[in-house]
C-alpha cells in the first residue's frame, strides 16, 4: 500500500527534528531513508507508524489519511534496530503475538507461524527463546513477527545496525530477496549509504530534518542535488572555485562541471575516481605524497600546487599509475565534477592562503556532513594566471 507524507514537521523543544518533509512511496516499492544519525529519519518512520505525533503535516497510507489513528490501528509492521523481541516468549509466540491480540483462531495462528518461519528460513525454531538465537536470526524473527498480521506497509528502523558486518551483508541480500517475493511496500532507515544503495529501489536523503534529495541510487550518485548529498554518498574532494567566462577554476585548475550553478563563487565536488593523475617530468600541477594499494584499487594522495590535498583512485592495473611514486610531479585531469553555489567569501579570505595542513590529514575526504571552512580552494588571482590553461 502506498505511503504519502506531506509537509511533515516535528519539534522537540526548540529543535526541528523533522522540517517540512514530503515524499511518496508507491505501492510495492522498497525505499531507503538515508542520512546521518540524528537527522530525523527515525522520527519520520515513527510518525508514519503512529509511535510519535507530528506537529504538522499529514500521513496517508493507501491514499487515506491516518493521522487520527492510534499506532495499533494503523496496521503497520515495524522492525526495531534492537529487535524488541519479547524475551519471555518463544519464537513461535513472538510471531503469533499480533494475531493473538487480534483474536485470530489458534489453528490459524499456528498455520501462519509455520508459514512465516519458512519464509524467514527458521523452520523448526519456533520453540526457541530469543536469547538462544544469533543477532541475524533475531532480526529475522522480528521481521516475521511484523509480517504476521499482514501489515499494509513495512517500516524498518536501522534494521541491520546491531549485527556484525558479515551478517549485515547477508541480511541485506535476504531483505531484497524477500521484498522481491512479497512486494510489500517497505521503508527502511539507514545511515549507511552502501546499505541504502544495495537494497533500495529508491533513496530519500534526509539531513537535519530536511529532505535533501530523492531518487534512484544512480541519480543520487551521479547527480547529487546538494553539496551535502555529494559529500555524504562517498568520498569526495571539495574545493572552492570561481566561475570565469563560463568555466570553473579551482586554483590553477579548470574543472569541467557537470552542473554549473548561476553564481560566481562555487564549491566544486570531485570524486576520487573522476580524477586522472599521471606522471610528468616537468611542471605539473601536483606532487604525489603517497600511493596506497587498497585491494582492487589504488589510492593516490597528492598536493596541488596551491597547497590543497587531492585524492584520486584508480583500478589496480591502470596504466596511468606507471611511474607514479611519492614526490613525483603529476599532471591533473578532472573528468567529472559537480559545482554548487556558495555565498561570496569574506573580502580578506579572497587572498590566496594555501592550506597548511599536512596532506595526509586530508580533512575534506569525509563521508559525513559538510563541515564549514574545509579545504578552501583559493579564489585569489595571482597563481591562477600562472597555472592557466593547465588542463585541457
Amino acid at each position: 500500500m502506498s505511503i504519502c507524507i506531506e509537509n511533515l514537521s516535528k519539534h522537540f523543544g526548540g529543535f526541528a527534528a523533522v522540517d517540512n518533509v514530503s515524499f511518496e512511496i508507491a505501492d510495492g516499492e522498497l525505499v531507503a531513508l538515508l542520512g546521518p544519525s540524528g537527522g530525523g529519519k527515525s522520527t519520520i518512520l515513527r510518525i508514519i507508524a503512529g509511535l510519535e505525533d507530528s506537529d504538522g503535516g499529514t500521513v496517508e497510507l493507501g491514499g487515506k489519511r491516518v493521522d487520527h489513528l492510534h499506532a495499533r490501528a494503523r496496521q503497520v509492521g515495524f522492525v526495531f534496530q534492537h529487535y524488541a523481541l519479547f524475551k519471555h516468549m518463544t519464537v513461535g509466540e513472538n510471531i503469533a503475538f499480533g494475531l493473538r491480540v487480534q483474536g485470530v483462531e489458534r489453528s490459524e495462528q499456528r498455520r501462519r507461524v509455520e508459514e512465516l518461519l519458512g519464509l524467514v528460513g527458521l523452520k523448526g525454531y519456533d520453540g526457541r527463546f530469543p536469547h538462544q538465537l544469533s543477532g541475524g536470526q533475531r532480526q529475522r524473527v522480528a521481521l516475521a513477527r511484523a509480517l504476521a498480521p499482514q501489515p499494509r506497509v513495512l517500516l524498518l528502523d536501522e534494521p541491520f545496525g546491531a549485527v556484525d558486518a558479515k551478517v549485515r551483508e547477508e541480511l541485506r541480500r535476504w531483505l531484497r530477496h524477500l521484498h522481491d517475493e512479497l512486494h510489500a511496500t517497505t521503508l527502511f532507515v539507514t545511515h549507511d549509504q552502501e546499505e541504502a544503495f544495495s537494497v533500495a529501489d529508491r533513496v530519500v536523503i534526509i539531513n537535519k530534518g530536511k529532505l535533501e534529495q530523492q531518487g534512484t541510487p544512480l541519480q543520487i550518485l551521479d547527480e547529487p542535488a546538494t553539496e551535502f548529498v555529494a559529500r555524504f554518498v562517498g568520498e569526495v574532494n571539495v574545493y572552492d572555485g570561481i566561475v570565469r567566462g563560463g568555466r570553473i577554476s579551482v586554483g590553477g585548475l579548470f574543472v569541467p562541471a557537470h552542473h554549473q550553478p548561476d553564481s560566481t563563487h562555487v564549491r566544486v565536488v570531485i570524486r576520487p575516481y573522476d580524477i586522472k593523475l599521471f606522471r610528468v617530468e616537468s611542471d605539473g600541477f601536483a606532487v604525489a605524497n603517497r600511493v596506497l594499494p587498497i585491494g582492487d584499487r589504488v589510492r593516490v594522495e597528492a598536493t596541488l600546487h596551491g597547497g590543497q590535498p587531492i585524492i584520486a583512485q584508480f583500478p589496480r592495473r591502470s596504466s596511468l599509475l606507471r611511474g607514479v611514486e611519492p614526490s613525483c610531479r603529476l599532471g591533473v585531469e578532472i573528468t567529472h565534477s559537480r559545482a554548487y553555489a556558495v555565498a561570496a567569501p569574506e573580502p580578506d579570505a579572497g587572498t590566496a592562503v594555501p592550506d597548511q595542513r599536512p596532506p595526509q590529514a586530508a580533512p575534506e575526504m569525509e563521508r559525513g556532513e559538510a563541515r564549514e571552512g574545509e579545504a578552501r580552494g583559493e579564489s585569489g588571482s595571482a597563481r591562477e594566471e600562472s597555472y592557466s590553461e593547465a588542463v585541457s
Partner: protein
Amino acid sequence: MRIPWRPLLFVTVIGYLAALVLVPVGAILIRVLAAGLGSVLSELGRPAALHAMKLTAIVATIAVVLNGLFGIVAALVIVRQRFWGRRLLDTLVDLPLTVSPVMTGLAFLLVFGRSGWLEAPLAAAGWKVTFAFPALVIATVFVTLPFTLREVAGVLVEIGTGDEEAAVTLGASPWQTFWHVTLPNIKHGLACGVTLTMARSLGEFGAVLILGGAISGKTQTATTFIYAATEERQEGAAFGMALLLALMSMLVLGVLEWLKAPRRKEE
C-alpha cells in the same frame, strides 16, 4: 617489607561484618538457647505475642499488596509519562526513605489524631484511625512506599519502550501490552520490590509506635512487642520475638538472592 594489602582488606571486611551483623544475631541466638528453647516458645505462645505476630503479618501483607499495585502504576507514570513536576514527584516518592519514621508518625498524628484535620469527618463516619488498626496500615504503607516503585522504575528505565512499542504496532491494546509484555518484563523488579516491602514492613517500629500506640493485644506489632517486653524485663519473650524477626529477615534475604540469580544468568 611489603604490606599484604589483599589479606588485610579481606580481614577488615570480614571483621566489620562480623562485628555489626554476625555478633548481634549470634548473641540473640545464644540468649534464646541459654534461656531454653522451650520456655521461649511458651512465651511466644501467649495470646499477646501471637496477636502481635498476626497483626504484623496482616499489616505487612496489606502494605505489600497496596504498595505493589501503587508501585507499578506510579513507576509507569513517572518513567513513561512526561508532565510538569515529574522530577519533583520522582524525588518526593523517596521521602519515606529519608524521613525518620518517628517524625512520620507525628505528622500523621497531626492529620488523624485528636483535633487533627481528618479526625472529625472520620469520627462522624464511625472510623477511628489513631491507636487502632488503620494507624498501623497507614504508618507501614507510608514507610514502605518507595520500594516497589523504585525497583520497578529501575527496570522500566532499563528495558526502554521498544517492547511496548512493538506490541502496540502489532495491534495490542494498552491492557494487552501491559499484561503480556510490560508485566513479564518487570516481574523480577516487582518481586524484589515486594520482598523489600515485606522486610521493611516486618521491621517498622517508630511510626507504628507513635501512630498505633502499641496497645497490647490491640495495636502491638512484633517490633513494639519486643520493645514492651524489654521494658518489662521479659527477656525470654523479647529475645524470642527478636530471633523470629531475624529469621524472617534471613528468609527474605534468601528469597531476594534467589530472585536475582536467574536474572544474572540471562544476561
